C-alpha cells in the first residue's frame, strides 16, 4: 500500500529546463524544508546518537563511557529479565495480533451489507478503538479484571455461581488482560477490511453460487484470496504496533506478576528512565529495531506465497 509509485509525475508538459527547473527546485525545497529540517534534527541525528550510545555506559549525569559490546553481552547472557521481556512480547504479538485480525475480519464481514443500521453498528464497534490508547480506558480495564477490588468480571462470575479468579496476580492470566484489551480494539483493521471487502466484485460470488459453492467455500476460495493484500497490510501494521505496546502494560499490569507482562518497550523504559541506563536502553532499542525489521521482512518474503494480486496470481 505504501511505495514510491504513489508520487506521480507532476506535470504533463515538462517546462523548459534551466530557469524553470531551478525555480521548481527552489519551490520544492522551500515547501519540503519543515520535514527536511525535522528529519535531520529529530530523526537522523538521534539515530546516529542512539547507535553510538548503544556501545556506551551513560547515566545522563556523567559523561558517556565507551564499553564496546558490553551492553549486548549483558543483554544476551547476563540479564534474565531481558529474556523474560522478550518472551512476554513474543507471546503477546503471536496471540494478540492474530486474535485482533480475526475478530476484525469477522465483524467486517458481518457489516459488509447495505442497511441503514450498519453505519450505527460500525460506529459502535469502532468506538472502543478511538479511546483505546487512553489512560482512562487502561485504568478502567484494570478495574474490569480486578485491581484492588473484586472487579467487574469476577463480580459477574460470582453472580452466576462461578469461583472468582485473581486475574492480575496470576502470571498465566495477567497477560490475557492485555491480550483481550487488544482484541477489543479491532476498529482500524476492521475498517480497512471493510473497505477491502467492498472492492470484491459481486459477480465472483454470483458465479460461485451458480456453481453450487457454499458459504465456506466462497470464503476460502474468493474472500480470503481477494482480501489477501489487505490482510498483508493489516498484519504488518498490527505486528509492528504489537512489538511496541507500552502504555497499557505500564498502567494495567506494570509488568507484574513475575515479569509475565514485562513487554520489551516497558522494560526498555524502566532501564533507560527509571534507573537511567541510557546506553543499555539504546542497545535494547537497536535490537528491537532489528527484530521488528526481521519479522517484517519475514512477512514480506512469505507474501509471494499467499498474497494474491489480480494482475499476477498466487505465487508469482
Amino acid at each position, binding site marked *: 500500500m505504501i511505495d514510491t509509485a504513489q508520487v506521480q509525475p507532476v506535470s504533463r508538459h515538462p517546462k523548459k529546463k534551466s530557469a524553470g527547473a531551478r525555480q521548481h527546485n527552489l519551490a520544492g525545497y522551500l515547501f519540503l524544508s519543515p520535514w527536511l529540517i525535522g528529519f535531520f534534527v529529530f530523526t537522523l541525528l538521534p539515530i546516529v546518537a542512539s547507535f553510538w550510545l548503544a556501545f556506551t555506559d551513560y547515566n545522563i549525569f556523567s559523561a558517556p563511557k565507551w564499553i564496546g559490546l558490553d551492553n549486548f553481552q549483558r543483554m544476551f547472557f547476563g540479564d534474565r529479565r531481558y529474556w523474560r521481556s522478550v518472551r512476554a512480547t513474543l507471546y503477546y504479538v503471536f496471540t494478540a495480533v492474530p486474535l485482533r485480525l480475526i475478530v476484525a475480519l469477522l465483524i467486517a464481514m458481518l457489516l459488509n451489507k447495505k442497511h441503514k443500521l450498519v453505519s450505527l453498528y460500525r460506529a459502535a464497534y469502532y468506538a472502543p478503538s478511538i479511546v483505546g490508547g487512553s489512560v482512562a480506558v487502561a*485504568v478502567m480495564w484494570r478495574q474490569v479484571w480486578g485491581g484492588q*477490588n473484586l472487579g467487574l468480571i469476577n463480580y459477574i462470575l460470582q453472580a452466576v455461581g462461578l469461583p472468582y479468579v485473581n486475574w492480575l496476580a496470576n502470571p498465566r492470566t495477567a497477560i490475557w488482560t492485555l491480550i483481550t484489551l487488544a482484541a477489543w480494539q479491532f476498529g482500524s483493521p476492521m475498517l480497512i477490511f471493510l473497505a477491502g471487502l467492498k472492492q470484491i466484485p459481486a459477480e465472483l460470488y454470483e458465479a460461485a453460487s451458480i456453481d453450487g459453492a457454499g458459504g465456506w467455500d466462497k470464503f476460502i476460495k474468493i474472500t480470503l484470496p481477494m482480501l489477501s493484500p489487505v490482510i498483508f497490510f493489516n498484519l504488518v501494521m498490527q505486528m509492528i504496533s504489537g512489538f511496541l505496546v507500552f502504555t497499557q502494560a505500564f498502567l494495567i499490569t506494570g509488568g507484574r506478576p513475575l515479569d509475565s507482562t514485562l513487554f520489551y518497550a516497558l522494560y526498555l523504559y524502566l532501564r533507560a528512565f527509571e534507573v537511567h541506563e541510557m546506553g543499555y536502553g539504546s542497545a535494547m532499542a537497536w535490537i528491537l529495531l532489528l527484530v521488528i525489521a526481521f519479522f517484517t521482512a519475514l512477512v514480506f518474503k512469505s507474501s509471494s506465497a499467499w498474497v494474491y494480486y489480480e494482475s499476477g496470481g498466487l505465487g508469482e
Partner: protein
Amino acid sequence: MSGTEMYTPAVPRGSKQTRDRLNAAIYHILVASSCFIMLYPILWMIASSLKPTSDIWTTTASLIPRSPTIEHYINGWAGFGTISFSTFYKNSLIYATVGTVAAVASSACVAYAFAKIRFVGRKFWFSLMLLTLMLPGQVLMIPQYIVFSKLGWINSFLPLLVPRFFGNAFFVFLIIQFMRGIPIELDEAAEIDGCSKIGIFFRITLPLIQPALITAAIFSFYWTWEDFLGPLLYLQDPHLYTVSLAIRSYSDPSAGTNWGSVFAMSSLSLAPVFAIFIIFQRYLVEGISTTGLKG
C-alpha cells in the same frame, strides 16, 4: 459472503419472505447484542462514575445507578493538592490544539512539495520519509530525551510541541493521497496566469484539500490528547500535568483511591474524543479506509 447466509434455517421454499425476515431479525439481534458487549465496559465506567461510592463495588455490573449522584464529578474536578482538574484539562487542550495545528499545517506544506512540485531528489526524500514510518519511536526516544534535558526543556511543553512543527510522515502521506485527486490542470492554469507556487498552495490547493486536513487534524488531536509516554517523560511538575497524567495519579494504588472520582474524571477525559467522533465520523472512516492510518 453475507452474514445472514450462515443462519439459514430449513424452511419450505414457499415462505421465502418469512425466512428472509427471520434471517434479518437474527442478524440484527446478533450484531446489536455484540455491539452492546463491546460498549459495555465504557458504559460501565460512566455508570459507575454516577453511583454513590458504596454502590460502585456492590451493584457492580449494573448500568443504571440506583441513586445517581454527581458528587464524584465535583470531588474529582477539585483535583489534588491545590491544583484543580481544570488545570489538567487546560494543559491537555493547549497541548492537543497547538500540536495539531502545527502538525497539520507543516504536513500540508510538505505534502504539497511531494505531490505538486517536480524537484530534484523528490523520490529519494519520499522513500526516506516512508522509511521513517517504520522506525520504532524507542530508537529516537533516548537521544531526544538527552538533548531536551541538556537544553533545559524538561518540565515544559517544548519537547512535546517543537517536533510537531516539522511535519508528520503519516499526515504527509494522507494529504498526498488526497492531493493526487485534484486535477493538475488547475495548477497549470493558475501558473499560466502568473500565480507563484506559494500562491497556488494557498489559493488553490489548501481550499481543495480541506477534507484531508480535517481527517489529519482529528487523528492528530486524538493521538495528542491520549498521549501518555511523552508527558510521562517530560512533565514532572503537577501544574503541567495533562489529563492522562492526572488520571494516572488519581488511580495510584498508594493514594487510597476514590474510584468514583477516577471513573468520573476518566469519563470526562473521553468526552472530547467521543464528541469529535460523533461529529466527524465520516472523515475518520474515510481516512482509515483509504490510507490505513491507525486510530
